[in-house]
């Protein structure tokens, strides 16, 4: 069977696409909006901004989150900032430049039309957030301050100290709180989505577990939106929050939604290194630190001297040396790989020799301790709490850690997946970041999708349904999905094996970081797949999930998530194996030039790989969406 993917890219010059498309989309009159029900899963910046906007427009919205409150999602932890093509600095920024930087930063593996729209809407996002009272940093004259981020040479990143994500999330949380109070949005907290329900191949609703009572129930709607974030917790140790998981998108994938570019994951260069085996997560230190911090390692291998004992001429500022144009501000993938090379070659520092230095001594001297404190105070504090070391006195130690998944559910220009009526927004979809996300673009994408894009494009699906009721939740498809979910829970509890869920998760993470992490090679990926399969089989035979379904059971919650991670992990390896090129975060050792830089293969791989589920033990089916670059001409990325 051949399936063609229609990305529904409007036929118009790129600057006019969004305008034209919005005009051509059907409208739903205010009096009719209340006749449509929409389910939104997830309350990060994408989900909360969407749900509040739909509620305000007059739709009936049901929101689900597994958190105790809808203010907790991991958007909250984004530190550095949000990009917008405001050109407030007059430094040559423009919509086209943000578009171009994003496409280039993504190593020419994203869809031009979507990225251009992202850049176009960016300015409005800042307006919206300021109007909501987001306390962005300001200059003494009272105007908004900006800073620069990796991979760009203009200053377009707006920020709120080191807690931009928190403030933007609170902005959308508060907007959603207003709708909850107004009664347009029905809120379900501590409710985890266990499955997507489809009827005749179309999204009809979801199955949800109440995490306190264990009750499993079905909810139907005219449309289902997944705003459930990324899947970097497949690596166990990542910068993601502990509960982040892929289950919502993976369950949707099993019901027919194609997964796009699952191997595209981003390893962030500046995380606090794991110094012991009990480390439960990696803590990110914002990329913005690289504005003022200089990255170095000792020139001498296995140098165990304290950093202050190493004189300047015995330090290798390797990013500045190798990439004089961008220096410490090269994009994340480049910085991470460079750090890995240094560590692999024996120049790593710290107790496990697995990190590099990020040094602020010069910046403190240049602008003063107070300025540095104002810029990064909370990050420095966080570093000190975790490591017990004071970064004002000596350099920080940093190491790469999985951070963001560029891959996700395939969506068209309307953000609709291959299951009609199922939409994916924010990190849950694949659309805008290609093979590598630029810093400060993820908050932008989540808010753009939620405030401006999907509220417009969702009418393409809803308008023709006017006058119809959602499939009733007593339709047999719901009963079957509920029964399957109950059976799955029963099996986890009944296995009564000998190893904890966390043990399996750690093992899976180890396999994934080794074979499908910062560098990948064919035989490693093959071995990875074999290991994942063996581990998955062992998991279903030997996992120990204590307790019962009928009360708060955190082990049971984790079991479902890890079980899905196994299946996703295998697909990630398969995708990485098939992509015989190096691009962005995907670095195949077989494909590099003499300087060790990534070698992209545009002739054969300039496409989105969209995988379809064929069964737990069957090989996924691949469909390609060819990528065309008419405005940002593919070049080899050079940051030298």
């Amino acid at each position, binding site marked *: 069977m051949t399936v063609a993917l229609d990305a529904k890219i409007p036929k118009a010059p790129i600057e006019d696409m969004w305008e034209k498309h919005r005009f051509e989309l059907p409208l739903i009159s205010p009096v009719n909006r209340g006749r449509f029900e929409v389910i939104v899963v997830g309350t990060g910046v994408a989900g909360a901004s969407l749900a509040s906007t739909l509620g305000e427009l007059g739709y009936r919205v049901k929101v689900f989150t597994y958190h105790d409150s809808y203010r907790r999602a991991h958007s909250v932890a984004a530190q550095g900032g949000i990009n917008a093509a405001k050109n407030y600095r007059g430094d040559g920024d423009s919509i086209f430049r943000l578009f171009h930087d994003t496409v280039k930063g993504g190593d020419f593996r994203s869809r031009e039309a979507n990225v251009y729209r992202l850049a176009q809407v960016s300015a409005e996002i800042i307006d919206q957030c300021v109007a909501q009272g987001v306390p962005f940093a300001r200059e003494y004259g009272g105007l908004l301050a900006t800073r620069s981020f990796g991979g760009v040479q203009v200053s377009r990143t707006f920020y709120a*100290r080191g807690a931009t994500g928190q403030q933007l999330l609170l902005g959308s949380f508060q907007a959603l*709180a207003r709708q909850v109070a107004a009664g347009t949005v029905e809120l379900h907290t501590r409710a985890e989505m266990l499955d997507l329900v489809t009827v005749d191949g179309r999204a009809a609703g979801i199955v949800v577990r109440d995490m306190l009572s264990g009750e499993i129930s079905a909810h139907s709607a005219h449309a289902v939106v997944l705003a459930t974030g990324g899947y970097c917790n497949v690596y166990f140790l990542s910068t993601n929050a502990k509960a982040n998981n892929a289950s919502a998108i993976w369950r949707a994938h099993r019901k027919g939604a194609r997964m796009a570019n699952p191997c595209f994951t981003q390893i962030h260069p500046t995380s606090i290194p794991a110094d012991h085996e009990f480390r*439960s997560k990696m803590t990110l230190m914002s990329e913005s630190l690289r504005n003022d911090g200089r990255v170095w390692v000792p020139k001498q291998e296995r140098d165990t001297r304290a950093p202050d004992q190493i004189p300047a001429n015995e330090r290798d500022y390797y990013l500045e040396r190798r990439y004089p144009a961008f220096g410490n501000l090269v994009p994340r993938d480049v910085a991470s790989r460079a750090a890995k090379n240094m560590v692999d070659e024996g120049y790593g520092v710290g107790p496990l020799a697995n990190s590099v230095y990020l040094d602020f001594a010069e910046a403190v001297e240049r602008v003063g301790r107070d300025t540095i404190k104002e810029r990064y105070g909370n990050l420095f504090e966080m570093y000190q*709490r975790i490591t017990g070391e004071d970064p004002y006195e000596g350099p920080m130690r940093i190491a790469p850690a999985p951070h963001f998944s560029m891959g996700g559910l395939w969506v068209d220009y309307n953000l609709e997946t291959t299951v009609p009526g199922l939409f994916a927004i924010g990190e849950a979809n694949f659309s805008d970041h290609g093979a590598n996300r630029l810093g400060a673009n993820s908050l932008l994408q989540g808010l753009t999708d939620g405030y401006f894009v999907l509220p417009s494009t969702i009418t393409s699906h809803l308008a023709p349904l006017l006058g119809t009721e959602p499939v009733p939740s007593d339709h047999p498809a719901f009963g079957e999905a509920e029964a399957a979910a109950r059976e799955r829970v029963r099996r986890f509890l009944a296995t009564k094996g000998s190893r904890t869920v966390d043990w399996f998760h750690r093992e899976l993470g180890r396999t994934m970081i080794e074979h499908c992490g910062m560098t990948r090679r064919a035989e490693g990926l093959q071995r990875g797949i074999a290991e994942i399969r063996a581990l998955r089989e062992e998991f279903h035979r030997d996992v120990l999930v204590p307790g019962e379904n009928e009360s708060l059971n955190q082990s049971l919650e984790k079991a479902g998530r890890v079980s899905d991670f196994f299946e996703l992990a295998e697909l990630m390896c398969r995708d990485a194996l098939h992509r015989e090129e190096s691009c962005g975060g995907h670095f195949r050792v077989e494909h590099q030039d003499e300087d060790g830089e990534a070698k992209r293969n545009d002739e054969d791989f300039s496409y989105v790989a969209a995988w379809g589920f064929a069964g737990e033990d069957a090989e996924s089916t691949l469909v390609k969406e060819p990528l065309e670059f008419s405005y940002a001409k593919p070049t080899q990325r050079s940051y030298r």
Partner: protein
Amino acid sequence: MDLTLRVWRQEKSEARGRFKVYRVTDVRPDMSFLELLDVLNDRLTLAGEEPIAFEHDCREGICGTCGLMVNGHAHGPQLGTATCQLHMRLFSDGDTIVVEPWRAAAFRVLKDLVVDRSPLDRIIEAGGYITVSAGSAPDANVTPIPKEAAEAAMDAAACIGCGACVAACPNSAAQLFTAAKVAHLGLLPQGQPERWSRAESMVETMERFFGSCTNHGECEKACPKSISIDFIAMLNRDFVRAKWKNRSLAGQKR
């Protein structure tokens, strides 16, 4: 190091809780407090006992999900630190550590160390926002905001909604939480149109759930973001002024 933990165990809201004693050996000083609980939970699971339920998520001190009473202190003994950022180097070999859930009537215990903090969300829903629909905002730089005002607003906005202020308060008052949001929005020009309705409505909703503030100041000390109780003074002033401003005729609310 070796530690003794006295942990509150409670099956569900309606059940009677009690302390259980656990010994944990070979604790590393560079482990976080939650990693200590992870290790203990692994051992309990393998020994056939139900692991201790506790909430956490980002483990970076920003999501506000975690929160335990550690030796009687909300979030433990270190100032300006959420439980997830608490590290074992603060403790010594042989210590006994008492671990309890947040203590407040408004926060019902759900299981072990997990409580229901949803009343805090009800306070935000009562007015902790600025009304602006998507697409209607003017250019972001049209209203300059003095740096000092923006910084003060950010100081208040830093609240992570963890509920430590309530847990630390002898009256279980939520004044600091409420004040932080009222001040964040009230200090900004964008927040002015709804300033008085917000203050009145949020305070009155707060009082439905929580106790009254009697200026003990425990909240400020417990706050992982060190939010100042000066904001409570601002809240009180705004509330009183709101009571005047919000009535159009004597004795009648608008």
